[in-house]
């Protein structure tokens, strides 16, 4: 059967949503990254439960912890944004509310990620 897709459309491979498999793939890449990062963070967080400020700041200021925590923040907020986007696209049918919610989620994820990253950098550079 002859395809109704134009040769250019087929070569681009981006489909009707115009971004191809990018969203799906990014969600999987962040998911794979989060498996070890989350296990590492949960184990560390259990050790830090009830710890005073000095202990928490000292833990974040260790180079390996700072790098992994920054990686966790980037992966977690990217993954959360991608997931919430799909939920909104599935359940919100009013176009204006949908676009507003998508933008609000994206803004919140970006701001929280930037605030967390700057905080990690601040603790890291001010460590004795």
């Amino acid at each position: 059967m002859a395809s109704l897709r134009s040769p250019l459309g087929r070569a681009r491979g981006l489909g009707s949503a115009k971004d191809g498999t990018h969203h799906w793939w990014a969600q999987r890449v962040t998911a794979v990254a989060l498996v070890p990062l989350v296990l590492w963070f949960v184990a560390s967080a259990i050790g830090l439960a009830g710890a005073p400020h000095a202990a928490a700041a000292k833990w974040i200021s260790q180079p390996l912890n700072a790098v992994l925590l920054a990686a966790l923040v980037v992966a977690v907020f990217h993954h959360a944004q991608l997931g919430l986007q799909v939920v909104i696209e599935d359940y919100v049918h009013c176009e204006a509310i949908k676009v507003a919610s998508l933008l609000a989620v994206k803004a919140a994820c970006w701001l929280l990620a930037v605030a967390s990253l700057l905080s990690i950098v601040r603790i890291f550079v001010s460590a004795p």
Partner: protein
Amino acid sequence: MASETSSAAKRARPLSPHLQVYKPQITSVLSISHRATGVALAAGTLLLAAWIVAAAMGPGAHARVAAFAGSWLGQLMLLGWSVALFYHLLNGIRHLFWDSGRGFDLATMEKSGKAVVAGTVVLTALAWLVAKAG
């Protein structure tokens, strides 16, 4: 699209049966739970960000976040958050196996689903035992 929907509603066309007519099954219940826990975890990232930012702000801010996390409401939220985290983590790994084209037959699907539920209970209990003992 919006005008189409509203005019269809005015003509009172019959609707297809909705969720409540279907019997809950382990496959469908675990599927929607993956989404629900994902949304809950997205809300839970607020606590992660609050903890990191408070650590950068100083002892006062850190003490306020720690006090909230230690309160009964904070502990209840952390308990719910840990259940959601372990469930989403284990079921996410199940999803990654499906993405590789494996484990789609019904018997395997039920087995892996039960393993995810059991793993969630075990990991949550283990995490809280270690946290409370340590």
